[in-house]
């Protein structure tokens, strides 16, 4: 198994990403030719209001988004079909309305900024196992419905009057397509973020349209392009510490641009396809090897940390603990980076800086939450913090420390070790 797939959060990200990559182009091929791409963007903004409601009420933001987006989609279709608002005017009203509502709701409740950031720009770290199930279920509904009504949706895309005079219930299917777009928005939101959902619907579709001769082929190519963008984008995001949503969308754009350039070269279709594949492989392998190196470096430093026994005295209890010691600056920089959740479960790392310093710890490339105890030169454990995986957050105590002891989340509480009451003894001081 590739290293990055050893982490639960990356497995979940890939699962959600694959669902998104299949669903988005399937909707896109029916929206883009009819100049309805804005529907996806509109519903994404409506979904944001749903996320805010979900967070306010303490329920799942995805569930909130799902309900509000479906209601919004129904309202939008009603306005459009009754001719109260023409074409994109209805979309503009809902887009700005949804966004304004979201902004107001967000200002009402402070304190979910991190979650909100994740929803706006996408976050693979916050995809929970429950999210993966919900996303997969929604994706299955969209795929099944599209496959069953593929022929009918295709006639509508070709020519609405032809569809009507062939007995296709155009109005009902248009409503269905809008509802499916709502579901797709919710599926893609977790991965690429509200602001980039429509990119995943439009860009692979355009690539498919420029490569495929038949509609069926174009649809298949669009799905393949989206899958490639997710695979390469997520891998790049993991190794280069990039925002996953942006990386996936930029990859899709790069493929689109690459196709546009290749189409200008007078080669046969096979040669073009080969060149495209080569481009994908070289881009991804270049990205992977660049960072494969860095992760290997952290893994080597982790493996080289010496194992020592230390004791911790908590109240009347004294316990002996086996720790890995990060002695060199290389080892201190490595920490738990690129390790597996299993290793985090059974390993503690003691950082010894030789003297009291002030510093902060990041959680980039760390696959599971940690507890960290900050310890004075005399062994006093004066601060214990929980650190969640995040590419950006920094954690540090109020005050200088000589030692820091990283353990799995919940370790100190389970051992009855409390800040301000426990002491660390390191038998062989440096």
């Amino acid at each position, binding site marked *: 198994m590739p290293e990055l797939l050893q982490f639960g959060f990356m497995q979940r990200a890939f699962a959600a990403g694959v669902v998104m990559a299949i669903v988005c182009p399937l909707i896109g091929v029916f929206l883009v030719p009819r100049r309805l791409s804005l529907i996806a963007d509109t519903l994404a903004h409506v979904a944001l209001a749903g996320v805010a409601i979900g967070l306010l009420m303490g329920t799942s933001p995805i569930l909130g988004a799902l309900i509000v987006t479906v209601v919004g989609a129904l309202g939008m279709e009603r306005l459009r079909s009754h001719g109260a608002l023409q074409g994109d005017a209805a979309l503009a009203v809902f887009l700005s309305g949804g966004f304004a509502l979201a902004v107001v709701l967000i200002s009402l409740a402070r304190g979910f900024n991190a979650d909100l950031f994740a929803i706006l720009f996408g976050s693979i770290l916050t995809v929970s196992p429950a999210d993966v199930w919900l996303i997969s279920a929604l994706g299955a509904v969209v795929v099944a419905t599209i496959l*069953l009504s593929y022929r009918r949706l295709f006639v509508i*895309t070709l020519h609405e009057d032809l569809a*009507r005079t062939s007995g296709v219930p155009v109005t009902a299917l248009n409503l269905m397509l809008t509802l499916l777009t709502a579901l797709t928005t919710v599926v893609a939101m977790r991965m690429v973020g509200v602001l980039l959902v429509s990119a995943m619907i439009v860009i692979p579709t355009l690539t498919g349209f420029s490569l495929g001769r038949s509609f069926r082929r174009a649809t298949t190519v669009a799905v393949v392009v989206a899958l490639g963008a997710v695979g390469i984008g997520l891998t790049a995001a993991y190794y280069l510490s990039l925002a996953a949503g942006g990386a996936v969308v930029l990859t899709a754009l790069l493929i689109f641009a690459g196709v546009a350039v290749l189409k200008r070269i007078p080669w046969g279709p096979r040669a073009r396809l080969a060149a495209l594949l080569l481009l994908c492989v070289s881009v991804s392998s270049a990205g992977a090897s660049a960072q494969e190196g860095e992760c290997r470096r952290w893994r080597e430093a982790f493996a080289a940390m010496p194992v020592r026994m230390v004791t911790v005295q908590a109240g009347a209890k004294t316990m002996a603990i086996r720790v890995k010691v990060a002695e060199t600056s290389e080892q201190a920089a490595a920490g738990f980076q690129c390790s597996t959740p299993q290793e985090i479960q059974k390993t503690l790392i003691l950082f010894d800086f030789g003297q009291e310093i002030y510093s902060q710890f990041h959680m980039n490339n760390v696959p599971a939450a940690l507890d960290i105890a900050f310890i004075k030169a005399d062994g006093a454990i004066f601060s214990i913090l929980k650190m969640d995986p995040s590419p950006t957050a920094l954690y540090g105590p109020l005050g200088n420390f000589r030692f820091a002891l990283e353990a799995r989340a919940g370790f100190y509480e389970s051992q009855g070790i409390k800040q301000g009451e426990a002491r660390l003894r390191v038998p062989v001081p440096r």
Partner: protein
Amino acid sequence: MRPFVELEGVGVSYGEVRVLDGINLTVEPGDFLGIIGPNGSGKTTLLRVMLGLLEPQDGSVRLFGQPPAAFREWRRLGYVPQRAALDPALPVTVGEVVATGLVASLGIFQRIGTRERTRVKEALARVGMEAHARTRIGALSTGQQQRVLIARALVSDPELIILDEPTGGVDPEAQTSFYAMLQHLSREREVTLILVSHDIGVVAKEVNKLACLNRRLIFHGRPGDFLSDAALTALYGPAVRIVSHDH
């Protein structure tokens, strides 16, 4: 047998503008009806009314004896839109376009099988386009696109085909063979045809019934009677004469 299309006192207005007024028209099985009239005479509106795409404010419409809203046997009807109807940028093959003509006769869970593929091939052969089944629609000439749309209409074996300005933008040579094909459909296969056009000269020669439209129906009958009739003057004004160009 009931008439295929019956219009009684049909009137349509767009806002203040009266586009169609008091239209009475029947299309019998076996008819080859040409609907002609100058630009803006309401031809396209009339066609949309007949197809059930537009509900008239006044009068009644019957398609195969039923009001369009209740009509379900769409397989019996073929519609050929203007050739500019298809987006040439869309990646769609000729075969895919023609297969959409079968959508009315296939259930949701039915897949396109050998039988359907054979029908698509046959329909393409009838319009002389069998070699182009896998060609992208945008790569075809105007006349070829028109043939594909007709193949699409033919694939469900309809009893009535309605064509909207089918020869617009088609070169004269292609027009001749196009009308020969329509004649074949009308005479040999007994398909009822309705043809909407602004090209009186050509249409009057080909059809066996003519309807001249300028908001109201000015003439409805055999084309021979029309060309000698004062209706032409009523339709286009006194300055217009039909110039018959025989090839």
